[in-house]
């Protein structure tokens, strides 16, 4: 509580002041733009850490399923919100959003470990199930679709101080986890049995990856929206894959590209002629441009 108070009254304005001092741009006068900038700087390494694994081990569809589970999470959240307000209480749909993300991520990981079905089949089943459930709830409750817009398209320009604290905490957690687990996860992705023979705990790392993916996806939704989360995670890593020669190099390139595209995209979307364009869309389009360019610089095999 006191940290939050300090952050909103002193910390955040202080940070804004410092940023304005070093950024002589017109947009830096706006607090929401500075918040968006901070969010980009925090988010890029998270997307990079997940994206590298998704690209190398063909799990793109997995992140799609987790992000679409957010749709169901929000639908359930709205129901609970309505119900709570009937009692004079309140409910934040963000809670069910994260809850459903975790549910799907762990569900996929568990079924994948216990059956010999192909991963994309399992993910497909979960994916359809959550979207169907979400649609069923939305149509039954007659919720206004406009309420979903924020979650479908994302809105990086409306972040408040609490959102940034969330991102900072998550960046710290994922950063520590990926420093500790990047190398083992790479070996597990290549051959779980080989990893096991080297004393790595395969199951622990599988579930840890699911947990981190669910957290990163649900936070990235605020920026890119349900529709584009996978793009945020995937495209920078796919671009880096074209350029890099080593596993470490790919990770470093992914962070750099994610930073450039998210900060650049946010700035570009502020310009007057893109005023009404979704920021998440601009970021992903910029990343796609980088990807297209990287195709010409592909390392020779």
């Amino acid at each position, binding site marked *: 509580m006191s940290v939050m108070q300090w952050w909103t009254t002193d910390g955040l304005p202080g940070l804004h002041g410092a940023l304005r001092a070093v950024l002589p741009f017109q947009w830096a006068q706006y607090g929401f733009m500075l918040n968006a900038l901070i969010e980009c700087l925090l988010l890029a390494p998270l997307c990079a850490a997940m994206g590298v694994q998704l690209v*190398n*081990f*063909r799990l793109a569809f997995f992140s799609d399923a987790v992000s679409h589970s957010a749709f169901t999470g929000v639908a359930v959240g709205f129901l609970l919100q309505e119900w709570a307000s009937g009692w004079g209480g309140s409910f934040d749909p963000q809670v069910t959003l994260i809850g459903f993300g975790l549910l799907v991520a762990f569900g996929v990981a568990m079924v994948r470990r216990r059956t010999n079905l192909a991963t994309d089949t399992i993910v497909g089943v979960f994916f359809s199930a959550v979207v169907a459930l979400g649609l069923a709830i939305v149509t039954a409750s007659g919720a206004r679709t406009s309420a979903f817009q924020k979650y479908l398209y994302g809105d990086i320009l409306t972040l408040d101080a609490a959102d940034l604290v969330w991102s900072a905490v998550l960046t710290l957690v994922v950063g520590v986890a*990926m*420093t*500790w687990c*990047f*190398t*083992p996860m*790479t*070996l597990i*992705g*290549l*051959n*779980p*049995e*080989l*990893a*096991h*023979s*080297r004393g790595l705990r395969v199951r622990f790392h599988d579930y840890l990856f699911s947990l981190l993916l669910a957290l990163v996806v649900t936070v990235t939704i605020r920026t890119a929206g349900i529709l584009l989360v996978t793009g945020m995670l995937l495209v920078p890593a796919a671009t*880096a*894959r074209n350029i*890099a*020669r*080593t*596993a*470490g*190099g*790919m*990770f*470093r390139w992914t962070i750099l590209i994610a930073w450039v595209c998210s900060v650049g995209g946010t700035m570009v979307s502020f310009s007057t002629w893109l005023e009404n364009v979704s920021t998440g869309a601009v970021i992903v389009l910029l990343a796609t441009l980088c990807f297209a360019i990287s195709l010409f610089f592909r*390392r020779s*095999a």
Partner: protein
Amino acid sequence: MTQGVPNSTTGFALRLRDVTVRFGSVEVLSNVSFEPAVGKLNALVGPNGAGKTTLLRAILGTVPYTGTIERGTTKTSRPSRIGYVPQKLSFDRGMPLTVLDFICCGLQRRPLWLGYRRKAKQLAADALRRIGGDGWESRSMGTLSGGELQRVLLAMALSSDPEILLLDEPVSGVDIAGEGLFCDLLGSLQTTGHYTMILVSHDLSIVTRHADYVVCLNRTVHCQGNTVETLTAENLRRLYHQDVGLFAHDGLHEGHSHTHGHTHGNSADAHLCRDHDDKRGPQCP
């Protein structure tokens, strides 16, 4: 990497007693008991679906089993370490991953994006030298040929300085030249007497030429013993439920593969070949 003192013949590297593996209601392995010869090349032969790979997995500890699998303490006070060479590594060949990246994955906890530990780099270089891959560190894993990839997998296993080597059909996807090179490597590892090797193979010509000890497996152990005494036409017929022809088998009968060290320059003298190859069951891959 220190070579260590060659294993004494006392003690054991690995001991399996009544190992039984069930998948659902199907008993894939029942009451398998054996003790591989310490410091020797032990071959595990049997038809497809005999449970050879499952047995390796039980030894690795990735499938649940009943019975006991004990690792001995032949070299140090700690239980024997296992080096595992999988049948193949299926991965995205366009993935940015060098040979050094791959081997270091098993040698360091430090994230690869913060660089390699000096010790890990040294161990990787030593292991690569032993498989004839000097200076392969910066090569991309995706550009290796099938034979080179198997040798890198062997280097990966050797880099952890194991006492036990588990090799699952290591040359099944490799061309003849690559197979020869890989077998030469196995031979040179064998002469050190440092590794207790368990080789799964259904290539009987490789087994007769290289193995010291053979375990015939089909759901359970049919027979085991030293290669010459065990790989008889009678035993093979019982194992494969069909005639297995022996061509130009003088080398086999002279006990060549067992007593004369393990040169394999004259590879044609012990060649086994199965008749009715087309009759193999539907479980063939």
